[in-house]
């Protein structure tokens, strides 16, 4: 069978016609693409999951400090808050997402999903669900394939680059990927997964990319936490039976149109949003004044 798909509608048609989950379609597509077996393809995804897990451990226990020094140990602190207002499930998702994003900001090893700047969202949401509902690694690997299908659709039909589409294209896409994966884990249909992805993307539509000093630190680490919590919320709304009015494909098109209409100042250039505030500008000046060295290594 041919497992290529361009739109969400194509993907749902493939699932229905062959009685497959989104994950199974994605695994078959990958087998075709790379001339490997399903076991080999799943093993590679399991390796990626293991890297996500190491990053989580590191972020929650070591409280890494970012290269620019703007974030440090936020994930760990939130995880230690005794009575989070949003409840343990959401607080852990947010803390895990931040912890992983902090490992990224501190030059640690992560899996871009879909980007390095948004790398905490998907594992934050998945590990939170796994902790409460006991999903094992095999289930999480399938969930990652579901999220990969959603990311692929967004990357194909819109963009996942902050410089092109703003933060909605990075954290928004990651949140959509996570919402689809969570819906799948909770037994939702392929259609429900795409509805949850659409809702997650709609909830974050218009979010600008405004990194202070151009670094992947503030507000990026915090935005990872909202992406993870938004994924839980979007999946729950769909699982409760509420329909999503605007379908996934149309939502992706709308997100792209919004991205194109954003001023370049709001697309990763550090010239708009909170990056343009006096406090951000002062921080930028002091970071780069301290680092105006020209690195040189003399060897032996």
């Amino acid at each position, binding site marked *: 069978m041919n497992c290529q798909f361009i739109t969400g509608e194509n993907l749902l048609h493939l699932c229905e016609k062959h009685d497959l989950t989104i994950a199974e379609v*994605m695994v078959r*597509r*990958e087998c075709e*693409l*790379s001339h490997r077996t399903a076991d080999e*393809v799943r093993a*590679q*995804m399991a*390796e*990626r999951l293991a*890297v996500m897990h190491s990053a989580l451990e590191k972020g929650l226990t070591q409280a890494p400090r*970012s*290269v*620019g020094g703007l974030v440090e140990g936020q994930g760990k602190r939130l995880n230690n808050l005794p009575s989070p207002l949003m409840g343990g499930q959401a607080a852990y998702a947010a803390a895990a997402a931040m912890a992983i994003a902090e*490992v*990224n*900001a*501190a*030059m*640690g*090893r*992560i*899996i*871009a*999903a*879909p*980007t*390095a*700047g948004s*790398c905490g969202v*998907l594992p934050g949401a998945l590990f939170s669900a796994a902790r409460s509902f006991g999903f094992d690694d095999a289930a999480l690997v399938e969930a*990652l*394939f579901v*999220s*990969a*299908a959603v*990311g*692929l659709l967004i*990357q*194909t039909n819109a963009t*996942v*680059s902050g*410089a092109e589409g703003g933060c909605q294209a990075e954290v928004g896409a990651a949140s959509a*990927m996570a919402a689809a994966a969570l819906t799948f884990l909770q037994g939702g249909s392929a259609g429900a997964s795409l509805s949850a992805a659409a809702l997650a993307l709609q909830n974050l539509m218009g979010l600008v990319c405004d990194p202070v*000093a*151009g*670094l*992947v*630190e503030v507000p990026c680490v915090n935005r990872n936490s909202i992406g993870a919590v938004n994924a839980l919320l979007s999946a729950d709304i769909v699982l409760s039976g509420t329909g999503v009015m605007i379908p996934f494909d149309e939502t992706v098109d709308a997100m792209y149109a919004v991205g194109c209409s954003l001023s370049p100042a709001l697309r990763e250039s550090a010239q708009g949003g909170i990056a343009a505030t006096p406090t951000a500008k002062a921080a930028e000046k002091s*970071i*780069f004044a301290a*680092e105006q*060295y*020209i*690195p*040189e*290594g*003399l*060897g*032996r």
Partner: protein
Amino acid sequence: MKTLSAFDVIGPSMVGPSSSHTAGAARIGAVARRLTGDDPVSAEFTLFGSFAHTYAGHGTDRALVAGLLGLAPDDERLPFSFELAAQQGVSFRFRTSEAPTEHPNTVGIRLTGRTGAVTRITAVSLGGGAIMITQLQGVDVSITGEYPTLMVEHKDQPGMIGEITRLLGDRDINIAFMRVFRHERGGQAFMVIETDHMIPPHIVQDVASLSRGIGGVYIIEGV
């Protein structure tokens, strides 16, 4: 353009913080190392545009040196590449330039190998970890490093392409993409062949002995 894989979306596996400024920079370093065909002993990097302005906060400098030392973009020793370079006796220097460039994330690299041979490279980081070598020894080229690549330096004369592609065909290596670049007719030229299969190291010797018109032969494993 390569068809996107699930592992392009859930990936790459990399050391942060930025796919363009860190992972892409490490890949540029790795490809540059291959293009010297020799262990580099010293390197001079010139950073342009966004690379010049924000390299410090993104570890772009450490990533470039890490790649040059042969470290993968997800090697956790990447942040310590300066120290590793010192241990390995590799010296390096960075400059920044305000000169305008076509692409915001551009780096010029001048490498000296153990034999004293100098390789000059210009590369750009395109985003998401994708890169392109845009100049080699002053000749405009395009090398992405996404596929196993054979790079052959040769004299621009009739028959060269046929000889080399026949040799690859005889060894069952399928060519995915290929391009030929040159300065002027009859001068120095570069053939860039991207393949679907790993290129065994002995191909270097086989290709080099084909004709006197062939200079350097380099293999870039997909990085």
